[in-house]
């Protein structure tokens, strides 16, 4: 792991030139989008001004087709800009953190891994993700990627018109790493929305038989933010030692977002909600900014924060 100082050095020597050369592509994308909008406006104007005459219809239609083609080319250019950004910039940031980490911009955590975690039991209708990174920190291997899962509802209004609504199940960073203790059951640490909203009364709402027993822990602050379910009271406490509870609280405070954790099989799964897209270039302002790069660096570093806070490299128990 390299320090922020060396990131600055790499920014000036490698990243900044790469970003500079991408700037022209970015400007080209913006230009094409603007052009498309302009053509579209022109088409609409001629259609309205022509008041339904066949001349106006033909012109309007051809301009609309032109606008469509223009949009299409803008989107393609945008894709190639994103791809170049990921390969020339993001890849270098990751190399700067650890040259042995693997980066696959187009892949994500698999559906199997997502199901295995047991964190979000709801069946999804749409599953997207990108920026898969895998690697090893000391003794702990991990995989992480951005993930967005959604489900669909269909409603029919009084006139019989169908409309689809998409709802997010999870959007953010999904990580899993080797856990340093042997576990047999399943333990879930979930955001405690009920208790935060309704106080002690919320505890009554927390019982969720499908996830196992509700485990009450002795750390009050932890109890305020999280609710714990497990199929084994003792194992839940074996995993959630006073130190680990502090660590989870620290991680939550540091990223100031909802965190879901599960301990299943040999792994610990961590899902952190983020509403914005991560690791994507900005389109409508200059891409050459150190602060953007720094932010990305810290986002990738999430995994080292998790591994260090939770002491996953401490291997003093029977699991090697």
């Amino acid at each position, binding site marked *: 792991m390299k320090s922020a100082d060396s990131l600055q050095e790499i920014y000036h020597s490698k990243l900044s030139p790469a970003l500079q050369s991408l700037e022209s592509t970015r400007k080209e994308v913006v230009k094409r989008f603007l052009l498309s909008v302009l053509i579209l406006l022109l088409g609409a104007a001629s259609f309205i001004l022509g008041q339904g005459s066949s001349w106006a219809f033909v012109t309007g239609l051809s301009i609309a087709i032109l606008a469509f083609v223009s949009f299409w080319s803008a989107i393609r250019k945008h894709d190639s800009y994103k791809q170049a950004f990921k390969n020339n910039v993001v890849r270098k940031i990751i190399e700067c953190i650890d040259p042995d980490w693997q980066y696959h911009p187009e892949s994500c955590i698999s559906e199997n891994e997502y199901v295995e975690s047991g964190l979000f039991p709801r069946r999804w209708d749409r599953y997207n993700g990108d920026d898969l990174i895998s690697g090893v920190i000391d003794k702990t291997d991990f995989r992480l990627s951005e993930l967005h899962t959604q489900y669909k509802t269909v409603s029919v209004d009084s006139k019989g018109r169908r409309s689809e609504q998409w709802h997010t199940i999870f959007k953010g960073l999904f990580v899993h790493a080797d856990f340093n203790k042997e576990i047999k059951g399943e333990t879930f640490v979930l955001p405690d929305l009920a208790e935060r909203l309704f106080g002690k009364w919320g505890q009554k709402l927390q019982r969720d038989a499908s996830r196992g027993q509700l485990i*009450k822990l*002795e750390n009050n602050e932890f109890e305020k933010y999280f609710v714990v379910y497990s199929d084994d009271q003792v194992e839940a406490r074996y995993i959630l030692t006073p130190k680990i509870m502090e660590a989870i609280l620290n991680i939550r405070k540091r990223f100031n977002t909802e965190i879901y954790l599960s301990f299943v099989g040999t792994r610990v799964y961590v899902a952190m909600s983020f509403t914005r897209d991560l690791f994507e270039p900005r389109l409508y302002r200059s891409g050459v900014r150190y602060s953007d790069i720094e932010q990305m660096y810290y986002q990738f570093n999430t995994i080292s924060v998790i591994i260090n806070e939770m002491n996953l490299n401490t291997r003093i128990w029977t699991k090697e």
Partner: protein
Amino acid sequence: MNTTLLILIAALVILSLIFISIYNGLIRRRNEVDNAFGGMDVQLKKRYDLIPNLVASVKEYAQHEKELLSKLTALRASALKPDLSVDEKISLDNQISGAIKNMLISVENYPELKANENFIFLQRSLNEVESQISAARRTFNAVVTDYNNGIQVFPNSIVAGMMGMKRKEVFVISEAERENVDVSKMFKQG
């Protein structure tokens, strides 16, 4: 049949239903406490089973620690006696914890022993069982707290009084123990 009698019967039925549900709830809580204590006992026994191995492997390399070794052996022998009271069990267990800790600290003076693979595995097993004991104790405390709350709130307290249920004590975990064993000192790898 007159209405007063009907109302009386209905009230009796409701009251006995309430009584049964409180009674069952309290029994469940008491069983959970016994169960948690049993779970802790299992882990304590696991640790007793590791002691002869520990004594044997330390003996081989560190003849100077005779006193510690015989103390540990004696403690184990008394811990395995049947019919110990809960308090005796706890006090013996605390002494064993302390003795093992001292042993592992004095092992620092014997590099050969520290590098021995069997011994490293033994240390891992001890750490494992130590963490399990601590988890089992915390579970015990949680269910005892639940039990104590259960028998003290009204109207449960009336039923609990009739059943002769008394407040149970939670484990007091000593300050030294609460601060997890400093493993970096105890267990330097490589």
